[in-house]
């Protein structure tokens, strides 16, 4: 990267994430004056306009791409209309050791004096919590599921190509046309639609005004800028900001700035999960790149520099913190804005172009935690691009993640998308599939599958809270077969899915009524045509997702019960339940037997994999295809982010030998340490999950640096990925084993039994080596680390 990008990157990394009260104060003042004077969509649009007009703006030294959500880089605003932080929250955020946020005194003061007094009891979160029934709260508090929208607005959404072809002028014209076409006499919802369209019109103008303010600032700065080179840049910035987002971008620079203004619009209007994502940025920028190179107005280096400037922008935006934070909660600054490289085009052709390679270089050189880059690997993706990707993977950043582009299309087709919309889609957030620019796919919460088993084994009683949460499905001591146990588990599962789905219906309806997002609606097809908000079902496709967590733990636990209790009869059910109740205290031999002598998912073992298929199938059957309140249906993802740790803390000992309180299995990875036959066996087991029935799964795999050495190592890593995708896998992400991992394996061998180390033709399980040899490998890994 050049000096400019290096400097911006350095400053971004050095700045401490800090909280600003500016947005909260503007919003509070606005609501005090305007609440009750407008319909809700118009009120929200005017609030957005107020922010665009009055929030502090900045152009930082050396920047080419401009605009921040907060008043300065790394400064995040809060969204009191959704959730209002307490003074305790602010104190803890400032002082907690991990992912802390600086909270200046004036913020604390503003919250105590103005923001909290106005918003307490009026936030959307307050209304959600008030509205949800007792049974929902009980399950939520027991750790059966979480709810995304109690903290942030529906989001997880991604831009498609239309913002590169049409400016706000074009969107506004579409809004006007849709408004003119309303038939008040025939359409009972016409009045409502008109208000929504009026709101979009206001939002479009507000976004243009926001850019215009940057143009004015750039002009003012240029007037006093002593350095002629920078002065030129500022003049150009002003020109770019007058062009976009008002009109369609004309060149590479304007295209990037266009995206960034749209991004800022979406994340200023509301605090949607996962911010907003550029999606297929390589495909969108390619025409601008080619034209610029062809007419000599752009060089490869300049293009790379502009992309570097954009990447730093993402890194400048830590995720706004949650409310109700605890000192122990680490969370993450990452807001999961995703860039999807490669993939396929609308007509199914390979999506790789010059900008794809350019982006790979930027990803490698900047290696920031944000944005989150991934590669959508299709059958038509050139092998060369995959290998170049694997070379970046080898660096050990943990990304780019790899996705099966053809599998994503299959998933989207299954959920009713047209083939063109499916190809223009991809994945966002962690692994979730969506039709970019045309779908509101809302993640509604994680679902704790092992907790369901714990409840089943206790006849619906939660041992932690001693509350009867689930139906009485029978005392397992009386079960005569594994089939009875599994039927009881399925019944408990259905009960809690029902509670979750009913809760979602209320929450999604509340967002539709109280928290429309007119700016996001403007750039999401077909909100304008339908005259309907993104949060109400205005998008072409409207999906709700529930995320299953702990499939490895629940599979291994069911397998252990079937083996030990019903097949070998080596441990009576009562005995097992007592051992679980006592967290295996004094029962180490039983625990070891459950850990080591029962089938485990991740070993290409038909018995264990069959149980996974049953459990997964029951989960999908309970959820997939159910209608939501936005005119779409439900789907499942199999991913935990970090929720397997929280769920683990809420779940007692499990029959797979896991101690109570410890993390559950992660994503669709096997239980930590359970896979003993290497990566191909893991991939075979994982591919026995019918991933086409999901809307995204997450598989993490550890690889030791030794096995990906040289061109041959890269080729074999590429082979591994291709084969997994041929088998139907959705996503794989490699963590190159670090010295830290090896040290952890040395300290906790049980959690790392499957960790293989390879040196020149010989391999062994790390945990089985002598201390001396382990130390030698650690030293070697230190040496090999890139």
């Amino acid at each position: 990267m050049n000096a400019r990008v290096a400097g911006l990157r350095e400053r971004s990394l050095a700045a401490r994430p800090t909280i600003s009260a500016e947005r909260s104060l503007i919003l509070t003042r606005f609501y005090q004056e305007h609440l009750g004077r407008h319909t809700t969509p118009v009120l929200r649009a005017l609030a957005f306009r107020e922010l665009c007009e009055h929030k502090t703006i900045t152009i930082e030294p050396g920047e080419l791409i401009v605009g921040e959500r907060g008043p300065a880089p790394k400064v995040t605003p809060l969204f009191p209309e959704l959730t209002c932080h307490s003074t305790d929250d602010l104190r803890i955020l400032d002082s907690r050791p991990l992912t802390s946020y600086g909270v200046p005194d004036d913020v604390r003061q503003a919250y105590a004096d103005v923001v909290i007094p106005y918003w307490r009891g009026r936030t959307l979160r307050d209304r959600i919590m008030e509205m949800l029934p007792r049974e929902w709260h009980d399950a939520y508090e027991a750790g059966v599921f979480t709810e995304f929208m109690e903290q942030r607005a529906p989001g997880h959404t991604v831009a498609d190509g239309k913002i590169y072809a049409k400016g706000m002028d074009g969107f506004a014209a579409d809004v006007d046309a849709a408004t003119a076409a309303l038939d008040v006499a025939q359409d009972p919802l016409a009045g409502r639609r008109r208000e929504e369209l009026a709101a979009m019109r206001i939002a479009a103008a507000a976004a243009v005004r926001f850019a215009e303010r940057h143009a004015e600032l750039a002009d003012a700065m240029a007037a006093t800028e002593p350095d002629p080179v920078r002065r030129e840049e500022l003049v150009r910035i002003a020109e770019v900001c007058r062009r976009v987002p008002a009109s369609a971008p004309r060149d590479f620079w304007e295209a990037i700035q266009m995206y960034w203004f749209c991004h800022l619009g979406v994340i200023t209007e509301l605090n949607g999960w996962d911010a907003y994502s550029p999606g297929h940025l390589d495909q969108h920028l390619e025409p601008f790149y080619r034209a610029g190179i062809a007419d000599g107005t752009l060089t490869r280096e300049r293009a790379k520099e502009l992309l570097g400037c954009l990447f730093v922008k993402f890194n400048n935006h830590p995720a706004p913190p949650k409310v109700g934070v605890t000192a122990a909660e680490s969370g993450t600054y990452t807001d999961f804005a995703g860039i999807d490289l490669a993939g396929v085009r609308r007509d199914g052709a390979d999506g790789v172009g010059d900008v794809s390679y350019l982006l790979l270089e930027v990803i490698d050189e900047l290696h920031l935690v944000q944005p989150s880059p991934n590669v959508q690997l299709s059958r038509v993706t050139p092998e060369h691009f995959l290998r170049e990707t694997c070379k970046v993977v080898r660096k050990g950043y943990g990304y780019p993640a790899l996705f099966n582009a053809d599998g994503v299309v299959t998933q989207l087709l299954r959920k009713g998308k047209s083939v063109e919309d499916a190809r223009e889609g991809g994945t966002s957030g962690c692994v979730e599939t969506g039709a970019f620019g045309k779908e509101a796919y809302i993640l509604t919460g994680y679902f704790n599958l092992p907790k369901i088993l714990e409840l089943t084994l206790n006849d619906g009683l939660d041992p932690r809270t001693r509350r009867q949460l689930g139906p009485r499905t029978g005392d397992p001591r009386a079960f005569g077969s594994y089939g009875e146990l599994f039927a009881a588990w399925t019944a408990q599962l259905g009960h809690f899915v029902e509670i979750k789905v009913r809760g979602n219906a209320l929450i999604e309806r509340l967002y539709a009524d109280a928290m429309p997002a007119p700016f996001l609606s403007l750039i999401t097809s077909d909100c304008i045509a339908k005259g309907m908000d993104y949060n109400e079902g205005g998008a072409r496709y409207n999906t709700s997702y529930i995320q299953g967590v702990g499939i490895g733990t629940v599979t291994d636990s069911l397998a252990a019960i079937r083996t030990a209790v019903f097949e070998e009869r080596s441990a009576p059910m009562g005995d097992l339940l007592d051992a679980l109740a006592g967290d295996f205290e004094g029962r180490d031999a039983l625990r070891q037997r459950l850990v080591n002598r029962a089938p485990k998912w991740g070993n290409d073992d038909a018995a264990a994999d069959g149980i996974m298929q049953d459990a997964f199938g029951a989960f999908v059957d309970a959820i997939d295809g159910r209608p939501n309140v936005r005119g779409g249906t439900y789907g499942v993802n199999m991913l935990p982010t970090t929720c397997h740790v929280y769920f683990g803390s809420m779940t007692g000992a499990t029959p797979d030998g896991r101690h109570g309180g410890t993390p559950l299995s992660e994503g669709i990875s096997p239980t930590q340490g359970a896979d003993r036959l290497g990566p191909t066996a893991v991939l075979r087991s994982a591919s026995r999950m019918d991933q086409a029935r999901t809307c995204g799964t997450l598989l993490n795999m550890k690889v030791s640096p030794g096995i990906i050495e040289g061109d041959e190592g890269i080729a074999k890593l590429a082979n591994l990925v291709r084969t997994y995708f041929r088998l139907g896998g959705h996503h794989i992400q490699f963590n190159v084993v670090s010295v830290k991992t090896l040290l952890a394996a040395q300290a906790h061998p049980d959690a790392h039994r499957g960790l293989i180390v390879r040196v020149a033709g010989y391999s062994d399980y790390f945990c089985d080596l002598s201390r001396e040899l382990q130390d030698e490998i650690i030293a070697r890994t230190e040496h090999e680390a890139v």
Partner: protein
Amino acid sequence: MAISQRAAPGATGLVFDVQRYSLHDGPGIRTTVFLKGCPLRCAWCHNPESMNAAPELRVFGSRCIRCEACRAACPLGGARPGEPPDPRVCLACGSCAGACPTRARELIGRATTVEALVDALAADSPFYDESGGGVTFSGGEPLRQWRFLVRALEAARARGYHVAVDTSGYAAERTIVRVAEAADLFLYDLKVMDPARHRRFTGVGLEPILRNLRTLDERGANVWIRLPLVPGHNDDTANLQAVGRFVAGLRRTRRVHVLPYHRLASAKYERLGLVNPMVEIPSPAAADIDRAVAVLVSYGLDVHVGG
């Protein structure tokens, strides 16, 4: 046992491991089948569990929780928790391994039918397809169970897998000729080129090994030479030159893999209750590996480091 009940010769083999995702035993992603039993006793052997042509008990001391289940299960009462087997009392019956809750005890070497083996090999066939990989038979010395080996090679080939044989070459000439008919590739060890030293370090003569290599080469077999590089044993220039000279004199074999010795195997000896004869030998330094490569390259050979 009545003769009629005995399986046909070679219907089963003594297999001690089937290792998936093998990256260093031939092209692509492979599954390596380890056949138990070896006529050689190489001083640097890194597969000590492969030597004995009979089932053996292996003990992972670090996994033991001292629950005494092994002692209780042992028909002779001689199993000791966490300790390697005592060859004087251990029958290698596997009773203790079946009882051990932590899998600290493992019986290695089991009679495996060709059918069962080939079914196991099928598990990774999509990975072979994608990577140009296949199956490698190693050991031990796989030629020692040549009847089984030929059947297994033919059965694997019938499923379309690329099949390789990793061998010391120490066998009767007609054996290796028969195996060559069923194999796509040989990974062929050349260790020490001085006959006396060869006998001292491996326990067997060199002559049949060189003869068989010439035979394979002349018959057009696809052969990759493997040279384990063991400091102080075979890394001297004279030996390297002798290897280079010999291979350069072959008709079509040109590819040589230098395999740097590594001490990782010492843990394996401990698990079997064996003394590692090579504990004090260091791994070769990078400069020594480079030097060995340079010597071999000077004979016009296609030299690779590692499997």
